Every structure is written in C-alpha cells, then in structure tokens.
C-alpha cells in the first residue's frame, strides 16, 4: 500500500550540519507514536539546494515547504500537519519577494506625528559643510534680513510670530530683542547677543543634537538677531561635556567667517558681527542667564536678583540678549517664511500678544520607559498621550504607564490623567510642571515616585550654587525628608514639611533654578500622595524600588537547589546545599537583585519588608 504522505527531509551536507538527521529521527519517532507509520514515511533526500534556510523539510503531495526546522519543530509538524492536516505556519518559507515591502517613513507613527522645523535638516545635510546648508536655503534668510528688512521690521516679524523662549522660560523673544535694542540705543552702549548651549538637564539632549546636526541654523539665527538688536559681538556658551557639538560649531563659525558671513561688512553691507565660543565648566546653575553671564565675565557662576534685567544690564553691564539654541534656530525660518506661517502651527492665539499661546514646534528628547527613545519635534499643543504612545510607541515589556516628567530635574511628574493635556508652555505650568528646555522622561509602573523625587532633589542639592538660603537649605532639608521616607523612617508630618519648604522656595529663591526646584516634590505629592503615605504609614514601597522597604525571598516551591543564585550573589548571602531548597540570609543580603537575574525558574521574589523581629 502506498503511503498517503511522504516527508522529505534534506540530508545534504548543509542541512545535516544543521541537525537534519535529528529532525528526521524525531519525525519518525513521533509518526510511530501517533500510529501513522503505515500512512506516512520519512525520506532522507539529497541536497535540496536551499542550504541557507536549512534544515529543509518538504511534505508531499501537499507541497508544503518548511525551513529552519529544529527537533522541537519536528514534534509539532508531526502533531499538527501529519496528524491533523494543518500546516505549521510559522515554519513555512516566505520568499523575500512576498515579504511585505518596507513601510514608508510617513506610515511609521514615530515619524508621522512629527513636524520638523528646527530639525528640518537633520540627517539630510553634512553639518560640517557650509555648502550643504546653503543648498537647503541656508543663509537666504540672512540675505533677506540684511537687504530687504530694517531692524524694526525684523523685530516686528519675530514679535508677530509669537516665538517664545525655548530654553524653558517661554518669554516672548521679540519683546526681549526689542527691549535690548531700546536699552542699547538709549544708553548708547553696544549690546551683546548670547546663545545658551549649557544644556545640563539629565536626559536632555535637544540643543546638543541641533548643534550637532545643523550648527549653521543657530549661527544664522544669531546674525539675524544681532542685526535686529544692533550687536557686533556674540557668544555661544556651550557646556564642556559636548565635544562633538563644540567641534562642529567651531567649524561652522570658521566656514562662515571664511565666506564673510561673519566679520566685517557682511554681504558688503555695513554690518559687522562675530561670534565667540565660550566653554562652560560643568556647573548646572550656569544655564541660568545671570549665572551664565557672570561665568562669561570670568566670575563665579552665581545668579543675581533680576529686578535689573539682563537685557539692560547683562554681560559687563551691557544690554545683553540671551536666547537658547532652539530659539535661535527658529529665527531663520520665521524670517524666510514669515510670521503667519509660524503661527499656523501651535496652540492658543498669539495675534494680540505673544503670551496668548504657544506657536511653532518644540523639540523634545524622549527618554525613559518608552519603546522609541529619541529626539522628536512636534507642533505645540499636541496631546502628551500622542507623544508617549504614538511617537514613543508606548511602554516596553508590557508594563503600564505611570508618569511622565517634563522640564528636566526641576520639572514635574504628570500622571495618566494629565495625558490628554496639550503640550504647550501654559498648560504644562498649570499642571504643576513646566516646558523646561524639553527633556521628557517616561516612567512605568516599576518606578517609585518618592524615589524619583529624591533622585532629582539630590541632583539639585549638588548643583545648587548656595548663594540664596531658601534654595541651599530648602533643598537640603527636602532631601533629608525624602531620604527618611525612602528608608522607611518617614514621619507623618514629612509630607506637610516638604510642601511648606517647596512653597517657600517657589516664593523666595533668587533664580529660576531655585523657584522650580521643588516641582518634582510638589507634583509627586499632588499626583502620587498615596505612594508617600504608603512609605510613611505602612513602611511599604508600592513599586518595590526603595531597598530599605523590600526584601528578597526564595520560593520553596520553585527552588530546585541549582545553586545558580549562590554563584550570582556577591555577598554570600544565599545558603543551601545543591538540590535542596535555598534561603537568603537577610543580615548579609544587600538587596542588589542579582539573584533574581541568576535564577532560571523565577523563584526569587521581591516582597515588602517583613516586620517580624
């Protein structure tokens, strides 16, 4: 009697080295077990010629072609296909031509929801070649500003565009420029323009990336600004930790100088202007405008009170206009395409005054617990949810969303309920956070919000310059309280204390670093108070992060005494003989979690600390 089905297993050299004999043997065993050995036979064939996808198995007369078959697959093929007649889809060969073509960039949510203005040239031009920048209409706005527009017209255009400071303050750029120009004219002192590239927020890299991918856009923006304000001198204050950005910026300045775009009589006009790079020395506070200017002068980088504005008395007491990298990079496009084009993007209404809304786009560095981390640019007013879930692709590893922190270390943490809020200057501030310079850190359910607040306050305590008491002492006391809470020794009135300190800091600190420093504490208390209470009242860290409040236990049901955890433990805290249930010596355990990683049976559990003596 002929067999109803023949299973051809390739026994060419290629497939044999991929264990096709093992596959054939397994198939035969399974066929016998299933009682099909009178109906189905296994045939070892010569090379099928498709060695790259081996081991190959062909089922005839069905004509089904399986590739990359392993022994465990053979069991499955026998049960599913040979017994039940259902070809095993995942092992079917799919020829490259039939594979889905690669998607278009505009069909990938990460790219589709972005709108590139400042980053328009990212990845498209060589940042070290000025000709590349010129090819994409670079320096065309400068020509327009120099030959077709008066300084007043430039100021008017920037004011009308509603552009607000991208460093986080959100102050209308046009008003700043105008005030600076007026101060310079009335005092008859040469003004100065400064680009703030001292981006120090943990997890933020917007300004670095702008300079790295398109340095000339910043340079062009500054020259246009200098024309509007009447400045002959400009500085870029860039942090020491950005060597590539600094190098590219230096090259850009050299090339611009060589082409006569910086220096004297730019494009044969009366305009003289040049830019100098000044390197920061690693102080976070020097990103604050007055501290930055002190540092520029060679003094200790400390802020001063701002009842006298820097646009009137700034660097060396000269009228000084400081803008952030991203703000400068917006300028050439506004001049080129007009204020109306710019206001067509964004939220609110800036037609009456720039405070009425947020026009244009914003660049964010999207980091933390999202699938697509990266640098993004979105229109102002986009809902936070679209940034986290569409562009960011949601939370990885099947975890759930807990909070997103905007605005760097002194921003606030916003919960799920705030996700439908539009992202613009005013909405974020209203929700207890801020735009900041554009860091965006997403946190999942394994994040402890008290610990997050503690981390940022620890950072800010380190970075506080110490000049004013509310910041220096307020941060220190806040950190003490947060340390207590995360170590399980928090007092019931610590929440009230943290709030009180935070409010005093908001009212009394000298600079924006201090007035915003309490944001991480205040916003986490506002939205995640239950976590604080769990730590203080029950001694429990709900996310299982605070090491003082958790302990590790071995599940005796799962432990097979394999000793893997013993080898993984650096403090010899795991006791037990091979093939016997192990246990953890709590005295020695430092709760590093290495044993959890080492255990192959998921047998080590993180549980709340037990109070039993």
């Amino acid at each position: 009697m002929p067999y109803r089905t023949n299973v051809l297993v390739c026994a060419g050299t290629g497939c044999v080295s991929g264990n096709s004999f093992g596959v054939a043997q397994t198939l035969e065993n399974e066929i016998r077990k299933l009682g099909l050995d009178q109906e189905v036979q296994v045939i070892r064939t010569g090379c099928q010629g498709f060695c790259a996808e081996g081991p190959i198995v062909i089922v005839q007369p069905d004509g089904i072609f399986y590739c990359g078959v392993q022994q465990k697959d053979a069991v499955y093929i026998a049960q599913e296909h040979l017994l039940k007649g259902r070809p095993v889809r995942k092992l079917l060969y799919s020829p490259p031509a039939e594979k889905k073509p690669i998607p278009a960039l505009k069909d990938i949510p990460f790219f589709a929801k972005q709108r590139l203005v400042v980053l328009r040239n990212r990845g498209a031009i060589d940042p070290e070649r000025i000709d590349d920048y010129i090819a994409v209409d670079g320096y065309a706005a400068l020509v327009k500003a120099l030959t077709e527009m008066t300084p007043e017209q430039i100021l008017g255009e920037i004011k009308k565009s509603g552009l607000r400071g991208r460093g986080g303050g959100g102050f209308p750029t046009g008003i700043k420029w105008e005030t600076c120009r007026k101060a310079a004219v009335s005092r008859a002192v040469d003004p100065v323009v400064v680009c703030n590239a001292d981006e120090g927020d943990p997890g933020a890299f917007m300004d670095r990336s702008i300079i790295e991918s398109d340095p000339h856009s910043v340079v062009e923006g500054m020259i246009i600004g200098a024309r509007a304000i009447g400045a002959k001198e400009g500085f870029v204050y860039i942090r020491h930790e950005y060597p590539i950005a600094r190098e590219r910026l230096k090259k850009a300045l050299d090339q611009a100088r060589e082409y006569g775009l910086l220096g004297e009589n730019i494009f044969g006009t009366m305009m003289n202007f040049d830019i100098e790079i000044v390197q920061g020395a690693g102080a976070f506070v020097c990103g604050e405008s007055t501290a930055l200017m002190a540092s520029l002068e060679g003094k200790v980088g400390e802020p001063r009170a701002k009842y006298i504005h820097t646009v009137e008395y700034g660097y060396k007491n000269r009228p000084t206009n400081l803008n952030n990298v991203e703000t400068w990079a917006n300028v050439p496009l506004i001049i080129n395409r007009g204020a109306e084009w710019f206001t067509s993007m964004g939220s609110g209404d800036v037609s009456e005054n720039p405070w009425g809304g947020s026009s244009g786009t914003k660049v964010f560095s999207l980091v933390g617990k999202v699938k697509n981390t990266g640098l993004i640019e979105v229109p102002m007013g986009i809902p936070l949810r679209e940034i986290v879930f569409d562009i960011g692709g949601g939370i990885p590893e099947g975890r759930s969303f807990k909070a997103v922190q905007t605005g760097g270390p002194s921003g606030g943490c916003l919960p799920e309920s705030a996700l439908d809020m539009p992202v613009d200057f005013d909405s974020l501030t209203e929700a207890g956070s801020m735009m900041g310079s554009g860091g965006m850190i997403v946190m999942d359910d394994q994040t402890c919000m008290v610990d997050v607040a503690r981390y940022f306050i620890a950072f800010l305590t380190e970075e506080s310059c110490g000049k004013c008491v509310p910041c220096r002492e307020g941060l220190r006391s806040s950190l003490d309280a947060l340390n207590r809470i995360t170590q399980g020794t928090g007092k019931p009135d610590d929440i009230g204390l943290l709030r009180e300190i935070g409010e005093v800091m908001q009212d009394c600190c000298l600079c924006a670093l201090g007035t915003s420093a309490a944001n991480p504490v205040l916003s986490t208390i506002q939205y995640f108070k239950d976590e604080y209470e769990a730590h203080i009242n029950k001694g429990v860290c709900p996310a299982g992060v605070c090491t003082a409040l958790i302990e590790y236990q071995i599940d005796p049901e799962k432990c097979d005494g394999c000793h893997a955890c013993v080898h993984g433990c650096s403090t010899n805290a795991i006791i037990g003989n091979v093939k016997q249930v192990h246990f953890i010596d709590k005295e020695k355990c430092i709760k590093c979690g290495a044993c959890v990683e080492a255990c192959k049976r998921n047998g080590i559990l993180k549980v709340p600390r037990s109070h039993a003596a």
Partner: protein
Amino acid sequence: MPRLSIEDLKKIREESKATLTLRSGQARAKITVHMGTCGISAGARDVMGALLKEIEKLGLTDVIVTTSGCAGLCSREPMATVELRGEAPVKYVDLKPERILRVLREHVLEGKVVVDFALASGCETTA
C-alpha cells in the same frame, strides 16, 4: 574662498543642491551615516570605517559617503540613509560593520533593499 556676494551664495546653492540631491555629478548613490553623539556611542564610527574601507577596496567612484547628525530614533542607532539616484531614500537601523557592508553590496550595488535592517523609505515631514 573669498568673501561671498549675494550672487555667489545663489550659485553655491544651485550647485550644492544638485550634488546633495544626486541630480548631477558622477554619483549615482549616496550613503549618509548618522553621526550624532548617540550614533557615535552606538558604534557609527566603526560602521563608517568599514564602509569607507570597502568602498576603497572595491574602487567605487560613484558612491558618495557622507555624515550627518542624529536621525531622531536614537534607540535604533547606528543608522544610515541610502539614496540611489531617482529613488526614495531608505533608512537603515541597528547597523554594524558587517551589516553596512551587506547594505552596500545588496542595496547600493545590486539595487535590492536589505529588508532585514531597513526601517522605512521616504523623507520626513518638514513644515
């Protein structure tokens, strides 16, 4: 180069635009390796090095290799963009030296997109 007049700027623009978009000149392909800090720390220099070495070995004169900044999707660096004359650019992700060589061989020389590491084709939306 002496100081530019406005006319010079226009001339440079037209000339560079033609090369940049592969409209004229000898090149029929352009490979852009994205070299922001993120790309470099993920290994873009090695990718670039391998690519340049191979192009020299093969004596290719009609392929431009250039650099640019971060392409945005930092978690998938090193990235590169391959553009053949008259075709939409294709972005590659998660590159390694041996992968860029495959891209060079299969995509640039043989005209077949390497689906395994290709993210997408086309350009981003600029406002």
